[in-house]
């Protein structure tokens, strides 16, 4: 077997050193009743070529985004990832290293995490950021738990602008932690009134910006309202590219910002792994979940980096830890930080503008589709399209797929209990779309409606 170096002679020599008859003898502590004496009844090992054939066959059953006019967003966005990002990502020293607990042999990982934390602070307008979490949804849930810890209050309010997966994950995470969750109705028009919702029992209000249906809002007054009653404002960002163009949550008074970092560096990957970004105010740093990288000096006085403030974490605090999280999304954080470094200030700003311009162009194009109208007053690169009374957006999407077009997501896929959302289609545009894509969508929509 190509990954196993031992020859039979090696094994015999090693067994002789150990003083064991055979390898099975080393498993003597396993109760005999549970010990199998032959391989489990599943397929035998295969060559690289054979495995490649299997995957190529499975890949062939999919319609990949690059092979179709593609307008799906809903929390994950298809962006162009520069070639060097993925090339650098496969360097073995990054790919095959462990969590940087031994700083002398991990300065590479530690330095990029330090840079990553700084970049996350800059784009969100926050003071401190951790070294990442699993994804946006779990980061959101962690924010709710952290807010309850900081405020010593129990009520979590989830805006109707929040991604339904973030809502469901948060609801599940806090279920047995003595917190109450108040979930507001989905908000396709961006008209939800949140000002009157917070009171003295509120630990935090969680809103998404741009919202799940694409709308953008000024959060400044909402932040003030939260702070007046001693609650925190948590802002979720599902499309980090938007931060190149829109006022960041930190500048609007957010106390915690969580985000999905997938847009930068990672590609779609059928939704996983993701990259949870988590940033907050300096005064809350010890209440933060997740790993943190900090600057220090070595024995010779040279600048270096270490994981720090670990006493918050499970391997030291055990049941009193801020979270049970152990991994971060190291390699995804690397992809994110490399892409963002390639872009820089100039590139992120331009990319964000281009995304917005593309969405404007898409809306413009869709005016040619009879009966369809955009519900949003505001948007960045995604909006909700109303296809007309009696129209089922789910059926429309299937018909578009049959024509080779991946034309958005029906809102009902997330909200099966809201019949009024059945005609609503979520559409996103990014720099990857061409005018031809948009024309193809428009003519296909016109045919199926």
């Amino acid at each position: 077997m190509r990954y196993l170096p031992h020859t039979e002679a090696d094994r015999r020599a090693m067994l002789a050193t150990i003083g064991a008859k055979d390898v099975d003898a080393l498993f003597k502590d396993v109760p005999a009743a549970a010990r199998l004496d032959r391989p489990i009844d599943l397929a035998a090992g295969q060559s690289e070529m054979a495995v490649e054939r299997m995957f190529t066959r499975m890949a062939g059953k999919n319609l990949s985004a690059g092979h179709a006019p593609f307008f799906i967003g809903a929390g994950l966005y298809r962006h162009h990832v520069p070639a060097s990002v993925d090339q650098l990502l496969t360097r073995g020293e990054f790919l095959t290293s462990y969590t940087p607990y031994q700083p002398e042999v991990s300065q590479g990982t530690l330095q990029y995490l330090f840079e990553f934390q700084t970049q996350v602070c800059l784009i969100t307008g926050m003071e401190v950021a951790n070294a990442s979490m699993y994804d946006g949804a779990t980061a959101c849930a962690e924010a709710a738990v952290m807010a309850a810890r900081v405020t010593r209050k129990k009520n979590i309010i989830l805006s109707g602008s929040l991604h339904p997966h973030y809502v469901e994950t948060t609801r599940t995470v806090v279920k047995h932690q003595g917190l109450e969750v108040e979930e507001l109705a989905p908000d396709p028009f961006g008209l939800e009134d949140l000002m009157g919702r917070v009171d003295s029992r509120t630990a935090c209000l969680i809103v998404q910006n741009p919202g799940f249906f694409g709308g953008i809002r000024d959060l400044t007054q909402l932040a003030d309202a939260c702070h007046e009653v001693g609650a925190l404002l948590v802002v979720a960002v599902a499309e980090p590219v938007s931060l190149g163009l829109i006022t960041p949550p930190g500048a609007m008074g957010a106390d915690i910002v969580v985000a999905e970092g997938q847009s930068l560096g990672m590609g779609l990957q059928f939704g996983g792994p993701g990259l949870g970004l988590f940033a907050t105010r300096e005064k809350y740093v010890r209440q933060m979940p997740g790993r943190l990288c900090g600057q220090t000096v070595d024995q010779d006085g040279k600048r270096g980096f270490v994981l720090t403030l670990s006493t918050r974490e499970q391997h030291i605090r055990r049941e009193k830890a801020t979270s049970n999280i152990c991994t971060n999304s190291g390699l995804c954080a690397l992809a994110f930080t490399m892409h963002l470094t390639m872009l820089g200030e100039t590139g992120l700003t331009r990319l964000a503008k281009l995304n917005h311009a593309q969405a404007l162009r898409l809306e413009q194009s869709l005016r040619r589709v009879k009966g369809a109208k955009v519900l949003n007053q505001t948007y960045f690169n995604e909006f909700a399209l109303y296809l007309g009374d009696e129209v089922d957006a789910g059926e429309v999407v299937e018909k578009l797929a049959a024509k080779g077009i991946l034309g958005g997501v029906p809102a009902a896929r997330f909200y099966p209990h809201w019949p009024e959302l059945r005609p609503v289609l979520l559409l996103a545009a990014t720099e990857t779309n061409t005018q031809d894509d948009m024309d193809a969508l428009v003519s296909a929509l016109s045919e199926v409606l």
Partner: protein
Amino acid sequence: MSMYFTKDHEWIKVEGDTGTVGITEYAQHALGDIVYVEVPEKGRALKQGGDAAVVESVKAASEVYSPVSGTVIAGNDVLAGQPALVNESPEDQAWFFTLTLANPAELEALMDRPAYDEYVAGLE
């Protein structure tokens, strides 16, 4: 003024119905370089043996328990900025908090200096 000790290595100095609490020389040595201290806020009601403060080194976090029940008069805010003071002067300048004793009879359960020294000697 008298000084008492707990098995968890806290000390309390008592004058009238006011106590001053900290951790012992032995405790600071066992923890190593202290990097962070969290003291209780004024007015907080503490129970004997209950969580009162937190003290952390790089690799360990430890609860500081209140030697007696009472109400916090003040936490030592200096420690937030100078955690190393706990290493340098654990039984004097690096006091954690003062409190008003709720029940001075609780002191009877604690050790005096010779008893504590003997207890520590037995740990090594």
